[in-house]
């Protein structure tokens, strides 16, 4: 069988340039050839193997003609693209498994406990403090919670969606009031998640008082801390959250206005604190 069949098979697959396809087709043709030889030997028991092989080869057809047809069908570049796609998937999966294994969730979100995949609840993520945000922003029975609003204010700038999601007013232990606001910037363009800067935020109340932020934030010697501030309040691939706090809030102020921008505001949010509307 060996030599004539080998020559025939090699000729039939010669023009298939993509190696794996050439080997696969050769195997299939070889299997057909073996079946034909076996059929001949079964039907004609007196026939010897050489003659059965010769007849089988004749029935298979002209190897060169078959080779030309197979060469036209099996395009090499498709084969290489297929192989490359398998390699890419394997490499990608291994890479992600390795980084996932060694770095866990940190690989994608970082080791900041404030990170989250989605802001599903519209509350800042301050995991360090546990569920304090639920207490702070959600309406509750605490008599010191003077106000808890969902202003639902939105603006769009450069494809970034900025929202003022929550506002809460609390009376602190010393009797003074603190105003909290939760803002969020989100975009589907995860590669350019928006940011807000504290020094570009200007807060004014209805009495004309401007609450200093950034470098202008006054210090409170009683608490040895800053009176006002805006800090990151959770982030994810598609959003950045910020929590604004203003201590010593004027209890007679009827509304609060947030103007954001390095010069002229790029967005402004005004919340009516008396009626609890925006």
């Amino acid at each position, binding site marked *: 069988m060996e030599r004539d069949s080998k020559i025939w098979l090699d000729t039939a697959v010669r023009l298939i340039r993509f190696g794996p396809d050439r080997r696969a087709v050769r195997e299939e043709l070889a299997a057909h050839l073996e079946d034909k030889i076996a059929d001949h030997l079964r039907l004609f028991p007196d026939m010897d193997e050489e003659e059965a092989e010769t007849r089988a080869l004749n029935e298979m057809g002209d190897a060169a003609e078959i080779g030309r047809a197979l060469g036209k069908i099996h395009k090499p570049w*498709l084969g290489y693209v297929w192989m490359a*796609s398998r390699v890419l998937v394997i490499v*990608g999966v291994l890479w*992600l498994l390795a980084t996932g294994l060694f770095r866990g969730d940190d690989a994608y979100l970082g080791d900041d406990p404030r990170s989250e995949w989605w802001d599903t609840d519209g509350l800042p993520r301050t995991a360090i403090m546990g569920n304090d945000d639920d207490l702070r922003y959600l309406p509750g029975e605490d008599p010191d919670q003077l106000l808890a609003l969902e202003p639902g204010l939105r603006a769009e700038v450069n494809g970034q969606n900025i929202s003022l999601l929550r506002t809460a007013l609390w009376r602190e232990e010393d009797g003074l009031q603190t105003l909290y606001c939760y803002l969020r910037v989100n975009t589907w363009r*995860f*590669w350019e998640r928006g*940011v807000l800067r504290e020094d570009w935020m200007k807060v004014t109340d209805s009495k004309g008082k401007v609450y200093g932020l950034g470098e202008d934030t006054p210090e409170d010697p009683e608490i040895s801390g800053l009176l006002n501030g805006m800090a990151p309040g959770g982030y994810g691939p598609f959003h950045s959250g910020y929590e604004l706090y203003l201590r010593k809030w004027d209890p007679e102020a009827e509304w609060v206005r947030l103007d954001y921008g390095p010069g002229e505001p790029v967005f402004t949010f005004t919340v009516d604190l008396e009626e609890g509307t925006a």
Partner: protein
Amino acid sequence: MRKKWKALWARRPRLGRGGKTVRNLLLALALAILVWGQYGCPLPTAELEFRRAERRNLLPRSEIVFASTGRGEKYIGRESGQSVSLWKPVFIGVAGDGVTAAYGTRQWTVDRYPLEEGPTPASFGYAPAVVFGPGVQEFRFPLMFISVPQGADRAELEFRIVYRGKEHFWSGQGFDLGGGTWLFPLETPEVPYGDYWWRGGGYVLRLYRADGSPLLEQSGTIPE
């Protein structure tokens, strides 16, 4: 239950090689996006990074008046014989009545200043420049001015600030970076300093023509 899953699995559509290739390529694309995201979504050029920094910071798209890739490009001082290099990508752009100044580190630092009539100071919170000269290689802070008139051949700056209770003064010549942008390599204060230490400082800018005659003198305060 297990049989049901097995039956479901057996009934899955069989993909040919073309289908498998498409499936693999889509999967590879999704994995590549995840890997790209892992590394902070880097972009191929500094300009693209600058534009992204503008959008992230909700700033209008500016017209770039100065750009440096930070690959050690040297700007030569005509008279001093010294040269200065910026070590990180730096962009300055004008949009409306404002100037955007951005400095490229892993997280780009972006600032915005009002555009003035005439030469406008615009600089970065922290950005090192290196001054080279005969026997000289020093880190300095680059205070930039844009919209410097084209006729200026030489520029001198006096800068003064009281920082952490101590007066800090510097005077010297500037480097013409082209396009009306000049760089003045300020020495940093002797006391420990933070970013933006130079804000609120007073300056006097003097411009001279090629024939040495004065072109412009302007004084002002670096905006905060």
